[in-house]
């Protein structure tokens, strides 16, 4: 049940997300960008006020609410000055934890009480308390968007497994306490059928984090390259043998919609900052906003932002009501990414020299939006997917 369906509760949620951002995030964001990561304490603080577990069943340690509440929270946080990098790093578990929860439910259904309890007590609850950082490891150095061909392999050793291979571009991978890694298990089949998700512990022998990757944007979000050399994995850390690809595909829609929200919310923030700037900034003796070209650019920014938001909201509502919307989610992501790229670029342009300076917030958003058309399904992959679904 959506908490934000009730206007007063929605207002309270927005207020909470804005206050949390203003108090706990924006004063420190520049420092965190220099550090290249968020402090662990921020996860605990976000958990304390329930932001970390929105959309997750309270019985599993979540906060309740649904995806519409996640959307409202994300919009409010970015609207108050959080960056795409903050969202990606603070809510990394949003793409990793659903796979653990899926396996938890499978074990409950299979009456594997110990196995289910293990996942709940050792992973799900600590992650939602902000005490454990959980990453998702899919992409490989020579793989990119092609999940079905990944090469990291798990070998059976008696009842257990050892995993060897490498992962890259792993969000929160430097700080991760556990990584849900997609690995090849040949015994379950070829291609997509041969993919299994396994939970790896960075403290295990053979696990290395050779590099924290330096990036164009998302500076406060650590990104790692991971190397596995016969990393042992116990059976209880296997999240459904051979079910990896299905599990990943299952959550593509929510991941793409989340990225769409980050995109149009960033566009809205850039628009708000630029509007205020255009009203206050005087050039050649007149406020910037008195120039027709500036006003029309603002309209263009507004139009793209609002179209992306309204479309994404419409798709999100239908998704929450249980519709399968693979093409629509891909289009929402594309539309919102295009809006964010245009609006962030125009925001820097209208800020003039100041827009190019580190001290201006739009500079950060300009850096941060660029990845949105690459990660979580590249624009070209999204387009081709829609072409196939539409029969073009």
């Amino acid at each position, binding site marked *: 049940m959506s*908490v934000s369906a*009730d206007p*007063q*509760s929605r*207002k*309270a*949620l927005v*207020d*909470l997300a804005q*206050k*949390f951002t203003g108090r706990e995030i924006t004063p420190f964001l520049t420092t965190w960008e220099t550090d290249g990561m968020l402090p662990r304490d921020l996860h605990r603080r976000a958990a*304390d*006020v*329930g*932001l970390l*577990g*929105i959309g997750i069943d*309270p019985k599993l340690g979540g*906060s*309740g*609410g649904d995806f519409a*509440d996640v959307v409202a929270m994300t919009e409010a946080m970015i609207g108050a000055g959080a960056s795409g990098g903050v969202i990606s790093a603070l809510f990394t578990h949003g793409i990793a934890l659903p796979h653990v929860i899926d396996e938890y439910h499978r074990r409950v259904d299979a009456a594997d009480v110990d196995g289910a309890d293990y996942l709940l007590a050792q992973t799900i609850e600590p992650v939602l308390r902000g005490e454990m950082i959980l990453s998702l490891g899919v992409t490989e150095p020579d793989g990119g968007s092609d999940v079905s061909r990944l090469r990291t392999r798990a070998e059976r050793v008696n009842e257990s497994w050892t995993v060897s291979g490498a992962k890259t571009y792993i969000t929160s991978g430097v700080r991760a306490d556990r990584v849900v890694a997609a690995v090849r298990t040949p015994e379950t089949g070829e291609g997509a059928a041969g993919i299994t998700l396994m939970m790896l512990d960075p403290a295990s022998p053979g696990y290395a984090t050779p590099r924290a990757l330096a990036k164009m944007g998302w500076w406060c979000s650590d990104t790692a390259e991971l190397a596995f050399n016969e990393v042992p994995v116990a059976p209880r850390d296997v999240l459904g043998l051979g079910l990896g690809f299905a599990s990943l595909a299952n959550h593509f829609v929510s991941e793409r919609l989340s990225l769409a929200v980050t995109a149009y919310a960033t566009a809205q923030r850039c628009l708000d900052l630029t509007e205020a700037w255009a009203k206050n900034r005087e050039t050649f003796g007149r406020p910037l906003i008195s120039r027709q070209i500036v006003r029309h650019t603002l309209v263009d920014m507004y139009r793209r932002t609002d179209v992306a938001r309204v479309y994404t909201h419409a798709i999100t509502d239908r998704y929450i009501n249980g519709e399968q919307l693979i093409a629509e989610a891909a289009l929402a992501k594309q539309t919102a990414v295009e809006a964010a790229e245009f609006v962030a670029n125009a925001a820097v342009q209208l800020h003039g020299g100041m827009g190019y300076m580190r001290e201006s917030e739009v500079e950060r958003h300009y850096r941060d939006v660029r990845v949105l058309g690459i990660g979580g399904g590249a624009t070209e992959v999204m387009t081709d997917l829609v072409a196939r679904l539409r029969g073009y």
Partner: protein
Amino acid sequence: MKIAVCVKQVPDTWAEKKLRDDDSTLDREAADGVMNELDEYAVEEALRLAEANGGEVVVVTMGPERAAETVRKALSMGADAGVHLVDDSLHGSDALATSYALAEVLAARNFDLVIFGSESTDARMSVVPAMVAERLGLPQVTFAQKVDVDGSKVAIQRQTEYGYDDVEAELPAVVSVVEKINEPRYPSFKGIMAAKKKPVETLTVADAGLDAAKLGATAAWTKVASFAARPPKAAGTVVTDEGDGGAKIATYLTEQKFV
């Protein structure tokens, strides 16, 4: 321990405030309503005292229908129940009428401690806590920057210009708090969800057994005869520096009696 916190919905602190043309009262529709900022500190202090000493926190407000939002906010911060006095005949009540209505509502419910924010951002009179205490015949310990409850006593540090006074009173008592006292929590997501299900008692003037003749604009002891918008800022004085800028500024400041 049963603690009441009196809260008020006020126009958003940052919004431009307007008076109504018809009766010269505050136009509450013209801006978003928020919980008076100092009342958040009062709610926080009540919750801390209840957490430390055990007990129940009841939030009490008087105001139009949408003041229910402010009750809800206090509930989402953690208060247990709400009382909302809402009636058209309350419109235009002055501090005397407000204190009368609140005192009656509070007296009927036997609280050990009543906590107020020390002033509201719209009226800024700071008199209601004292008036309520007087009407209830209770000790008032106001402008607290620290509150401790020990058995049947409440001890506060009363903020003064130069430091603070230690003041004690027997319970039941009325306390008002200043913003130095704590940092209000934000309502957690779970608190927001729980707030919808908490009990809120909505009372009319008749329900509360109040005398309508003592309430509202007609009963007010003061009346706004007329009002005008603040004049726009004047252009100011431009001092051109021709080597004597410092002296000119000093002359200006002297003329204006700033130095």
